[in-house]
């Protein structure tokens, strides 16, 4: 049902500003994910919207706790209790799936698009692999330590093979694979859930991601791999279902700097070869600059500023984006001290958030109107896609209206004004 992605073929190479003319592969609209904890309701992701086009790399950047990873997990429907996706739509372009769903779930279909939030759970799960797949931050903890790497890749392939064998049935994956079948398969060595073809393909994938001696490595356990090699294996695993959208959640954070570059190069090459779209989640603006076509800057569960790379890096409007840019070292001019953003990401507990700009407390350019009302997302200078959730989009900073703060705050304002 899903492997035939007719839609992606007639789409133009989606990079840069001309992507706006094509239909996106993924449209996320007003996605909200909340965690219901003992301390209160935490709005980890609040009304986030973005598009991902065919063959592009869309970056999401932000500090720890800004909601980047939860956004990714929400798209895959992997948010676990006490968290829940509470609102929003995730429109995925797939004409075949749209045809399948049109009669049974008309509310979830619009043209070639399907709202994955409104299809049954089984269908949503069947999208993991062939539609969305994910690379996790820490490869060492994201593989089962007691199963060989090859077997773990092969089962990801096998699940898609079985789904293709029964394209009309979204239940097909669990059919013929109940507990009884699993027990006989595990106890009788002659029988195996994973077919020989899938094992071969797993070795092929390991080859593709540049793991030498792939056949031998496939028989090894995760603890026998180095971090970089295991992250390559994870990339291979994510490719198993030939996904339309690959979500890379901090794919290089747990790795050595030298290995980071290799993994990024690998991802860029594969994205080119496989013609897939990538959502690159990172806290590292360097990764964004190197990899992405368009970027969204997340803060406190919202996208604070978005646009093309030029928009965000050369003409940032939101003081948070400016702060992020000032907090990375510039190799050409290492002399000035880095300017960290003071303070921490707010707790995101619903009752403490209020109708105001969430960044105002840390913002060197906060004014009275920032706490009066939550700023709407508005168009600003730059490309057509450059949008920002900040009052500064529409007016200049006026020091006389500055939000009263501490001594350091005012000093920081002064230096920021220079």
């Amino acid at each position, binding site marked *: 049902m899903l492997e035939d992605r007719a839609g992606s073929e007639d789409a133009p190479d989606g990079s840069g500003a001309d992507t706006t003319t094509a239909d996106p592969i993924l449209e996320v609209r007003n996605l909200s994910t909340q965690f219901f904890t003992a301390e209160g309701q935490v709005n980890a992701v609040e009304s986030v919207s973005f598009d991902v086009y065919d063959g592009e790399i869309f970056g999401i950047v932000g500090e720890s706790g800004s909601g980047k990873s939860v956004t990714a997990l929400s798209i895959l429907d992997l948010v676990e209790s006490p968290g829940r996706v509470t609102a929003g739509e995730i429109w995925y372009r797939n004409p075949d799936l749209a045809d399948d769903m049109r009669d049974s779930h008309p509310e979830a279909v619009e043209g070639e698009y399907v709202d994955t939030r409104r299809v049954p759970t089984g269908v949503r799960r069947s999208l993991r692999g062939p539609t969305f797949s994910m690379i996790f931050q820490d490869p060492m903890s994201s593989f*089962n330590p007691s199963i060989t790497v090859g077997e773990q890749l092969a089962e*990801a392939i096998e699940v898609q093979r079985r789904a293709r064998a029964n394209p009309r049935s979204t239940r097909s994956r669990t059919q013929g694979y109940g*507990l009884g079948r699993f027990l006989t398969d595990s106890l009788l060595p002659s029988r195996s859930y994973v077919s020989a073809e899938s094992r071969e393909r797993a070795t092929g994938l390991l080859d593709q991601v540049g793991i030498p001696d792939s056949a031998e490595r496939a028989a090894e356990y995760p603890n026998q791999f180095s971090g970089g090699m295991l992250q390559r294996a994870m990339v291979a695993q994510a490719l198993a279902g030939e996904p339309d959208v690959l979500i890379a959640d901090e794919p290089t954070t747990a790795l050595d700097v030298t290995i980071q570059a290799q993994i990024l190069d690998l991802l860029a090459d594969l994205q080119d070869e496989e013609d897939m779209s990538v959502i690159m989640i990172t806290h590292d603006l360097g990764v964004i600059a190197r990899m992405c076509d368009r970027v969204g800057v997340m803060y406190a569960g919202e996208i604070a500023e978005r646009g093309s790379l030029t928009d965000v890096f050369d003409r940032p409007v939101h003081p948070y984006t400016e702060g992020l840019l000032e907090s990375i070292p510039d190799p050409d001019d290492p002399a000035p001290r880095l300017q960290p953003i003071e303070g921490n990401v707010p707790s995101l507990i619903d009752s403490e958030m209020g109708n105001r700009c969430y960044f105002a407390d840390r913002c060197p350019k906060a004014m009275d109107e920032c706490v009066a009302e939550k700023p709407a997302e508005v168009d600003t200078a730059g490309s057509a896609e450059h949008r920002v959730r900040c009052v500064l989009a529409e007016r200049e900073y006026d020091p006389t209206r500055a939000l009263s703060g501490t001594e350091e705050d005012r000093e920081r304002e002064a230096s920021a004004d220079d």
Partner: protein
Amino acid sequence: MALGRFVLKRALQGIVVVWGVVTVVFGLRFITPGNPISVIAPLDASPETRQAIARELGLNDPLYVQYLDYLLGLLQGDMGYSYISNTQASAQVFARLPATLELAVVATIVAVVISIPLGVLSATRRNEPADYGATLFSLAGISTPNFWLGIMLVLVFAVQLEIFKTSGRGPGFVSALSMLVTQGSAAGLLSWLSYITLPALALGTYFTALITRLTRSGMLDELGSAYVKAVRAKGLPETLVRYKHALRNTLVPVITVLGLQLGTLIGGAVITEAVFDWPGLGTLVITSITARDWPILQGSLVVIGVGFVLINIAVDTLYAYVNPQVVYE
């Protein structure tokens, strides 16, 4: 081969442990009150008779000679002679061993068959009625003393309902099985079941409760771990997520506890065996203590110690098999 060397190494370590056990067991006799001669000799025995008995038992020899004699005897399978019946102690001990092993193994099987599915159910239906039921069961099972449970089981199922036998062992599994094979009759097996069910339940309940808890908490840990999220992200069905991935890793600590508990079942089934008058090592230990029949007591303790060591070697080997991060060294 790494596995062979591992087993050999553990076996050598095991021999040292068993030697320690033998030494302690031997030493026990000299720090406990009571004189073997009084046990053997009639109350009105003359001092000459008592001297003769002491000579015969080697009690006049220096301690190290007695110790070396005992060690050498053990190496040849000689545990001495019972003070009471004057028969070979080893014959008595080994005659009781099958009954104890049988009870321990059946109790373990009962425990494993009930506890692991129950623990998984409890973890996957967390905070649902099934989970509350399983948690309540394991709390009750851990808190119930097994001698009381044994007596209650006898009262209800043997005395009132007359489904099972109150005490004794019946034909034993091997003879019941050979009856089935040679005569094609299941009567022996049924009779065996009617004897073993209650003691196995009494002995296995605590064990079942313990493993249920362990499986539940282990499964919860595993299901919340990062790799499970990654497995789900691959689109694997939930059955595979649970049984192929999470349960497999949960079993690593379960196997450890299982082995340790099987060891205690062999040695520690004393009370249950007494309640059901089960003709195993436990009842033998009790009767030999009350009779001060030292050779029997020492022999039983040595056999229990050896059993413990063997089970631990088996568990360590199995442990390394299920957890590839363990290297045989």
